[in-house]
C-alpha cells in the first residue's frame, strides 16, 4: 500500500478513488503521539553525540538544537481506503504546518462524498502545480490499475452491497 511523497499526490489519487467508488470509500486520519521506544532513545542519543563531535571537529558552525531523546514523536497519517476493491492510499507527515492544508483537502474530498458540485480551486492551484511536476511514472501505473479494475468489477461490488442491507 503506497505512502505518497507529497500531499497533492495523495489528494489526487484519493479523488480518483472517491470518484470511482463514492459510497464505499472512507478516509481515516490518525493523529498519534508515541513515546519513543528504548531503542529509539538510544539511537537518538548516539546520533546527537556523533553529530556534536562532527560539527565540533569541522567548522565552528552553530550546532543545531538537538532534540530531547525522550521527546514523544507525533505523526499525522491520512488513509483513503475502499474495502470493496481493497485500495488503500496513505500519506504521513510530522509537520504541524501541513494540518490546515490537509484538512482543507479532506473538506474538498468531503464535498465529493456528499456528491456536491466541485468548487473552483483557484486557491490551491499554485500548490498543485508544484506537486504535479514530479510524479513518478511507476506510481501512476501502480495506482492507475486498481482504478480501472474497480470500474470493471463494479457489478460485483454492488451485488455484495445489496446483500449487506
Amino acid at each position, binding site marked *: 500500500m503506497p505512502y505518497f511523497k507529497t500531499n497533492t499526490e495523495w489528494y489526487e489519487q484519493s479523488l480518483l478513488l472517491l*470518484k470511482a467508488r*463514492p*459510497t464505499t*470509500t*472512507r*478516509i*481515516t*486520519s*490518525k*493523529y*498519534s*503521539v*508515541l*513515546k519513543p*521506544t*528504548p531503542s529509539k532513545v538510544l539511537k537518538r542519543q548516539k546520533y546527537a553525540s556523533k553529530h556534536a563531535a562532527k560539527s565540533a571537529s569541522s567548522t565552528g558552525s552553530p550546532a543545531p538544537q538537538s532534540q530531547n531523546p525522550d521527546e*514523544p514523536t*507525533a*505523526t*499525522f497519517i491520512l488513509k483513503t481506503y475502499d474495502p470493496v476493491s481493497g485500495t488503500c492510499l496513505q500519506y504521513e*507527515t*510530522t*509537520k*504541524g*504546518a501541513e*494540518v*490546515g*492544508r490537509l*484538512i*482543507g483537502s*479532506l*473538506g474538498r*474530498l*468531503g*464535498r465529493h*462524498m*456528499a*456528491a*456536491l458540485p466541485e468548487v473552483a480551486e483557484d*486557491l*490551491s492551484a*499554485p*500548490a498543485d502545480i508544484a506537486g504535479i511536476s514530479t510524479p513518478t511514472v511507476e506510481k501512476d501505473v501502480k495506482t492507475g490499475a486498481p482504478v480501472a479494475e474497480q*470500474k470493471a468489477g*463494479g*457489478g460485483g461490488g*454492488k451485488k455484495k*452491497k*445489496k446483500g449487506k*442491507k
Partner: protein
Amino acid sequence: MAGDHLSNDDFFAQLTNLFEHNRNKSHGTVYLTQKRLTYAEVEIPSPTKIVDDPLWDLHPEKPLPVLIRASNNKSSKRSGTDRPGTDRDNVEKIKLSTVVQPDKLDAFYARYAEACKSGMSGLKKRDRKKGKKDKKKKKAIPGETKG
C-alpha cells in the same frame, strides 16, 4: 454501530476534549474518519435498475450527508510486567460520531480544521529557517471560534 450521532456542536466540544485528553497524557492516538452516509438515508434502486445502470451510485439525485467519526485508542493495563513501555493505564474507548448535512459541509470543515490545528499540537512546529510561506491561506475563517 450506535445510532446516536451527536449534533455538530456537541461533536466539536467532545473532539476538543479528546485532543485535550491526548495532550495531557502526552501520548496516545486520535482517529478521525469520514465517509458518505448511506445507511437508511438513500434507497437502493431495484435490481433491474442496477443492471441497467451499474454505476448508479456515481450520480445520486440529491447530495448526501457525510458521516464523521472520532475515537481514541483504547488501552488496557498489563499486569505482572514492569518492562518499560508496559506502565500504561487503563483508558476507556471514546467514540464520537456526527452527521454533516451537505449544506453545512463547508462551515463544518472550517471549524474542523481549526479544531485539528489546535488539537494536534504535538506535531513539529514550522522550521524558522525556511521563513514564512504560503501556509494559512486555505482555512482562514476568523469568524469561527470554538470553545
